[in-house]
């Protein structure tokens, strides 16, 4: 099992999750974060930290494609271990549906 970051994180990126992860397994893209499924220890401490409910256990239905995406991007993005300021327009994007098309595969700063 692992936890995964899903669509709600795209263009939101509050990074509250990063501070609490005991194994530093969040990886940063330009406008989203992902969790490395092989490094996540399933401790669940990040789930309630996310202000937009973007972190889910992979046991929830419909998570398969997100697990694959998290694994794929974690392999190419840099690790992020410290919280940063959220993007200025994060609030605007928080509740928007269908953001997947906006996902940038470019790496973040880490």
């Amino acid at each position, binding site marked *: 099992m692992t936890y995964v970051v899903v669509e709600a994180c795209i263009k939101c990126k509050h990074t509250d999750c990063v501070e609490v992860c*005991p*194994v530093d397994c969040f990886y940063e893209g330009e406008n989203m974060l992902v969790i490395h499924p092989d490094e996540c220890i*399933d*401790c669940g401490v990040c789930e309630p930290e996310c202000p937009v409910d973007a972190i889910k256990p992979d046991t929830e239905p419909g998570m398969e494609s997100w697990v694959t995406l998290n694994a794929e991007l974690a392999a190419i993005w840099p690790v992020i*271990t410290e919280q940063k300021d959220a993007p200025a327009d994060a609030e605007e994007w928080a509740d928007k549906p269908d953001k997947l098309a906006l996902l940038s595969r470019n790496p973040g700063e880490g």
Partner: protein
Amino acid sequence: MSVLQKPTDFTSDQEIRWCPGCGDFAILAQMKKLLPTLGIPPEDIVFVSGIGCSSRFPYYLETYGIHGIHGRAPALATGLARMRPDLQTWVVTGDGDGLSIGCSHLIHALRRNVNIKILLFNNQIYGLTKGQFSPTSPQGLVTGSTPKGTVHEPLNALSVALAGKATFVARSVDTNAKHLGEVLRRAALHRGSAFVEIYQNCHIYNDGAFDYAKNAKIKANHVVELNHGEPLIFGTEQDLAVGLNGPRLETIKQRGGEWADKPLIHDETNQDSSLAQMIAQMRHPEMPEAIGVFRAIKAPTHNDLMPDQSPTTKERAKRLKKQLTSGQTWTVA
């Protein structure tokens, strides 16, 4: 018989009751990665535990498990390893379970070199009972039961294990995935009693107790990794080392790329455990704390020493009766 392949194959259907963020999750994750690599069918693996958050470990693995009574896991496991040498037997205990109520069971299981692998999750607190001090709590720790701070010196888990003559003694850190995985693998392969202390963060009652050994920014200056045959060098610049000065260990520093005093070379096969004891007793912040395998020696196991004492159940009953009525007995009127 079945040999499982993936970590998820060892995941049981039990709902995990640890607090989110608990270090126990990290240890469980490494164990789930290790077990499929051992080539042992799950029905031939047993996890025996006592009482505590740590002792809930067996529930979460798809192997056999015994949630025993407080502090008695080593005794239960001794019996199991004695009669079922075909099984791989692990013990999971905590600093409370293993070093308070169960301390003598622990020492004697080690002394007998029973073929069991003992993992002691040291969070320096009683977690399950909501945060009382434990025998490993550092002096002065304010807890629910020590509002003015603990007054006594803590016990050192590895000193106890070495005093018990354990043939394999190691230490690792819950979230140091690679290191912990390797230490667990070495313990699994050891023949005889293996003892592993794992620094484990109790996220609720003693959060951050091992930050110096976990925080990526500072740990290099506070932790020295033991590798057999290699010097005890540490530090972000790798310019610090542990050296032996007369009867004590001290931190030495490289100057101009040269060691004025020689760094100590680690020998895990040393029959004499005196140096291992000294290394085990290095404490933060005065010294770096050592992780890795302190001692790994070959010695006959408990079962090796009693080869002719594994009779069948029927023979045992007969022998027992004979023994009980063999003189030295009398009837109380």
